[in-house]
């Protein structure tokens, strides 16, 4: 008797109940996306520590200031300008509405979405810092930072992600199928990596890095444990970066976190063995770069490859990153103290292309995207991925070379050689990081 009454009550309230459930799911989505945004924000700490650890102590304050300010200035720029360029109604190449927060209304999802997208924009910006470390004028770095978060990142971002809000990107409407870059191997990391390449080339190597007669010298970082902590923080934050990009609190979070981790561990292991073979000992900073390479590489396909696909993507990224660091450093003689070009640029491109090979949404039963080449889906998705990778790389390289050369001509890019010798901390900021009695 009691249960009949209860059942009747449930039936009566079922309509209201469905509404409540919808509301609950909405709130779960907001909470999960915010937690993920806070984790991605913490990447700033990871990037700062990696760069600090792999450079000399005399430039530590400069690195902290760069990382603090590219986030701070970048946030405002993205709020007011970048967001509209990336997510406003598009003219075909970039968004033209929603500037100055005009697209953000009282709806709590809008705020959640913009904070999530802001921490992504800041990540793209901060990648460049490491490649130009120990020799860049602070003011020039700030100028660069304004342009990347206010213009370069949001424009190409709108091509791939515009439809997440009010925009519509041309890469999302390719005839061979939409370009897939789930959490930003290319939109965020490769873009940052290619900008880092243009910055490192334009500014030139640190003093003493390359001697006469083709001699390559090491400039050892001052604190490898610090760099290692930075990598672990980045790894932790990456679970937010990838699994948070669902912006939905459901079971896909666990799957994406799992896929992300497989690639990261595979990258670390593969880089360790590659360094072991090449240098006779398992190398710490290369293995750490390998973990990051695995994370960058799986970022594009973390929602639509199988665990096996993730394993292969990660393993290959670990090999690529080690060889790429060596080629860039010793053959091309481009001085990138942290390996940003290899980790973010090259491995970001690899991971994005790999979606065209390993894409398996339909195999996994989680979506309708094209199946990749290795699962019998033909070339279509691979072509879409190539178009996305190449177009965003071209955009980044052209913008980067123009931007850094303008800064070089107008305000200068590089500190004096005396300043470089003494350290940017004292000369640019008037304070040493590690106080010692004098």
């Amino acid at each position: 008797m009691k249960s009949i009454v209860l059942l009747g009550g449930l039936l009566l309230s079922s309509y209201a109940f469905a509404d409540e459930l919808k509301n609950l799911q909405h709130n779960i989505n907001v909470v999960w996306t915010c937690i993920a945004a806070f984790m991605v924000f913490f990447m700033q700490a990871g990037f700062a520590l990696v760069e600090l650890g792999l450079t000399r102590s005399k430039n530590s304050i400069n690195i902290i200031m760069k990382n603090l300010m590219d986030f701070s200035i970048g946030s405002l720029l993205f709020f007011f300008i970048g967001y509209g360029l990336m997510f406003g109604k598009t003219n075909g190449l970039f968004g033209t509405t929603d500037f100055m927060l005009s697209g953000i209304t009282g709806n709590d999802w809008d705020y959640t979405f913009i904070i999530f997208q802001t921490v992504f924009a800041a990540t793209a910006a901060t990648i460049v810092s490491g490649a130009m470390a120990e020799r860049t004028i602070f003011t020039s770095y700030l100028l660069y930072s304004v342009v990347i978060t206010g213009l370069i990142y949001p424009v190409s971002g709108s091509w791939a992600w515009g439809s997440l809000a009010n925009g519509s990107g041309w890469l999302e409407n390719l005839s061979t199928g939409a370009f897939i870059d789930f959490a930003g191997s290319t939109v965020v990391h490769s873009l940052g990596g290619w900008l880092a390449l243009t910055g490192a080339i334009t500014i030139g190597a640190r003093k003493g890095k390359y001697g006469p007669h083709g001699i390559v010298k090491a400039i050892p970082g001052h604190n490898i444990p610090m760099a290692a902590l930075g990598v672990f923080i980045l790894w932790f934050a990456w679970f937010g970066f990838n699994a948070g990009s669902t912006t939905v609190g459901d079971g896909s979070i666990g799957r994406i976190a799992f896929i992300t981790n497989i690639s990261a561990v595979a990258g670390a292991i593969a880089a360790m063995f590659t360094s072991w073979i090449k240098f006779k000992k398992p190398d710490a900073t290369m293995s750490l770069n390998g973990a990051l390479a695995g994370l960058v590489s799986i970022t594009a396909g973390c929602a639509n490859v199988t665990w096996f696909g993730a394993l292969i993507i990660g393993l290959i990224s670990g090999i690529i990153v080690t060889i790429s660091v060596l080629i860039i450093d010793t053959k091309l003689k481009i001085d990138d103290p942290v390996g940003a070009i290899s980790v973010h640029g090259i491995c970001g491109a690899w991971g994005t292309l790999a979606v065209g090979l390993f894409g398996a949404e339909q195999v996994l039963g989680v979506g309708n995207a094209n199946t990749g080449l290795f699962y019998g889906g033909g070339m279509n998705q691979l072509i879409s991925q190539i178009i996305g990778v190449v177009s965003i790389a071209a955009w980044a390289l052209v913008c980067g070379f123009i931007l850094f050369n303008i800064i070089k001509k107008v305000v200068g890019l590089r500190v004096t050689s005396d300043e470089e010798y003494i350290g940017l901390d004292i000369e640019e900021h008037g304070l040493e990081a590690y106080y010692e009695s004098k």
Partner: protein
Amino acid sequence: MKMIVAIIKPSKLNKVKKLLFENNINRFVVDDCYGHSDQPSTFETYRGVEMEFDLQKKIRIQIAVNDDFVDKTVNAILTAGKSGKDAEGKIFVYPIEQCYSIATGESGEQAIG
């Protein structure tokens, strides 16, 4: 009064210290230093680039003693510092012109204590 300066291997510091204490030699200064001798260079690899280190880590002990303590001190370091391998270090002995204790204002042999 003599100043004894010994350059020893870092791995021998504890043994040397212990033997000095046993011989009632309780006042000395120790610092880290680097030296070059006949030892070969050591090599490290940083991000695939080999680095050569031609200086080795050493420990420098400075002991100011009165003349009747010189032999005891030198023998203690010779005994405890020896490992039977190459490049075990050196001991230098040279005269001290004057010595003052900052705490008591004493000078000469009393100040060395």
